[in-house]
């Protein structure tokens, strides 16, 4: 193996690109879970975003429009989950799984005519002198706009949850929907909005895969990214700031294993390609081993159905 053939600077730069889809999906799911809802359909919403974004971007020739469509597609699909779990009181685990299975099927169907096409590019942002900085310029400041948008979303979510009344209400609903209801808050409305936001973010993450990272459409191209996003929410102990850490850590591993494959490492390809999943498992184990802390941070009513009786 020739490690010197790996350009570590580019590796760090591509880390941010590799992490962005998961970062977007995970921050969306964080909001959903903070509201007390467990949506296991992230994978399905991501791939819907990937296919919607790709189709619109190809048809209109505009990648930004593609991203808008992706967010809309993800949010729309998430509303299916929202209606089923919030109004029809269906089991959240089962419905989330259904969302993933359905999303994979529907996206494959929608993307039939788009296999093998190249997506219109999104272009790098020119951050002027920042981009020209040595080392840091390459790593941090020569990316496309979505990389920065994703970070901005994380910061916005953090500030929203910490400082605003809306964020407080959202957290309250996730902690105890009965108490929130008793105080007169509309639990279902809050949760539906959170679910839609989560769907939109997952859609953006999916579109980032099909429009920037790959960039083309193939069936099932998310390859578990949505599930990893779910794992990162657990890793982050439901804290927005740590989502960035988790996503970039994961992005780093992905990029590193791809680089090792390219560099012809002596490790079998299969071992390298399974490594992100194995490492996710290990991280989950480490996080949940500290049981008390894990339980402390999880929203108390996560995954429970709410029905206002009398």
């Amino acid at each position: 193996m020739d490690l010197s053939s790996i350009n570590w600077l580019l590796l760090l730069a591509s880390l941010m690109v590799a992490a962005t889809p998961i970062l977007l999906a995970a921050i969306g799911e964080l909001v959903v879970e903070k509201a007390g809802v467990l949506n296991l359909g992230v994978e399905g919403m991501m791939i819907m975003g990937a296919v919607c974004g790709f189709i619109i971007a190809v048809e209109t020739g505009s990648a930004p429009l593609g991203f808008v469509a992706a967010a809309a597609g993800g949010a729309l699909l998430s509303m299916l989950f929202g209606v089923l779990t919030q109004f029809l009181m269906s089991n959240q685990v089962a419905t989330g799984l259904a969302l993933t299975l359905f999303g994979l099927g529907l996206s494959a169907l929608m993307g039939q005519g788009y296999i093998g096409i190249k997506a219109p590019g999104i272009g790098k942002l020119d951050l002027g002198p920042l981009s020209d900085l040595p080392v840091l310029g390459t790593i941090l400041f020569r990316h496309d706009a979505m990389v920065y948008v994703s970070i901005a979303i994380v910061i916005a979510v953090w500030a929203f949850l910490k400082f605003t009344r809306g964020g407080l209400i959202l957290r309250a609903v996730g902690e105890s929907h009965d108490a929130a209801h008793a105080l007169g808050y509309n639990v279902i409305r809050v949760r539906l909005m959170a679910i839609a936001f989560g769907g939109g973010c997952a859609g953006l993450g999916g579109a980032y895969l099909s429009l920037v990272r790959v960039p083309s459409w193939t069936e099932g191209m998310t390859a578990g990214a949505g599930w990893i996003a779910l794992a990162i929410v657990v890793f982050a102990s439901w804290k927005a700031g740590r989502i960035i850490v988790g996503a970039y850590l994961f992005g780093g591993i992905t990029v590193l294993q791809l680089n090792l494959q390219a560099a012809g490492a002596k490790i079998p390809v299969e071992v390298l390609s399974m490594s992100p999943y194995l490492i996710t498992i290990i991280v989950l184990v480490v996080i949940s081993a500290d049981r008390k802390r894990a339980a402390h941070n999880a929203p108390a009513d996560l995954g429970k159905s709410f029905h206002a009786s009398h």
Partner: protein
Amino acid sequence: MIWLEKRPAPSRTWSAASPIVAVFLTLIAGGIMFAILGKNPFEALRTIFWDPLFHEQFASFSRPQLLVKAGPLILIAIGLSFGFRAGIWNIGAEGQYIMGAIVGAAVGLALYPSESVLIFPLMVVAGALGGWAWAMIPGLLKVRFGTNEILVSLMLVYVAENILASAAVGWLKNPDGAGFPGSRNLSQWEASANPELIAGTGAHWGVMAAVIAVVFAYVVFTKHILGFHIRLSGEAPRAARFAGVNPNLLVLVCLGLSGALAGLAGLFEVTGPAGQIGIDFNVGYGFTAIIVAFLGRLHPIGILLAGLLMALTYIGGELASFMLSIPGAAIQAFQGMLLFFLLGVDVATHYRVRFGRKGVA
């Protein structure tokens, strides 16, 4: 205004009727989907649900396929129903299916070219153990560290797929295969073959195992204290602990059982219909079985019927793809839709739908 009112007790009628209503609604929605795809919806639905069984030309080929496809679905779904009833979510059956096939095949191939009659039984045991062991990973991690079994079992699917790939192109590759990926053909090696037992039905040993599993699950759920404890754990976890159920033990039993059954399904597939370990050996039975389990209301008889229905959509889908060039993905979306409708209709089991003014603001 429409609102829901909790029933004093779950409705038995709706519990049984909701899958039928869901299937009906899915047929309508599916018809609309086919119409949007520019196909005649009635022709499409007939091709999927009628022709595989009764078409004069194709039925003779596709009818046996019904049991071939239903066997693994039912076997896996029965296993899953144990955990799902207890609120233990093994969604990595696909991975356990793969590992069962690999371990079983590896044990068999290690003894190639012996003709001992013990080889097939040995492979069956190894297949079950392979799936069991793979399911024990999320089980033990959950028991020991409280790790979420949903995420771990799912991640292990991707790991298993990579192991499958490495087996197919590497350590299980057929040495006489002229360099093509894939293992020796197990269905053509008499000692390991899982043949059709009754000509023209498609019933192989896996189908027999599925039938046995259905009976076994039925007895456990209705008559045995284990089944009672499983249901109790799903309904009221605290009450289960109060009754003396050890939740950790239950996690291991449920995950182990579902893993072993998924592993068995994989073994019967690789020695029968699939014939060999190849890169594209797994076709998603482990995931579709989740739909089968729910559609069957986690009830053994329900799962039997749901498995047959799902198998029908598989072979009908293939037929529709061949005859009407309806893409295979449409069938996948169709299956997902079915699960959605079921979950939606299910509300009627626990709630009464009311119209009019509601008292609660």
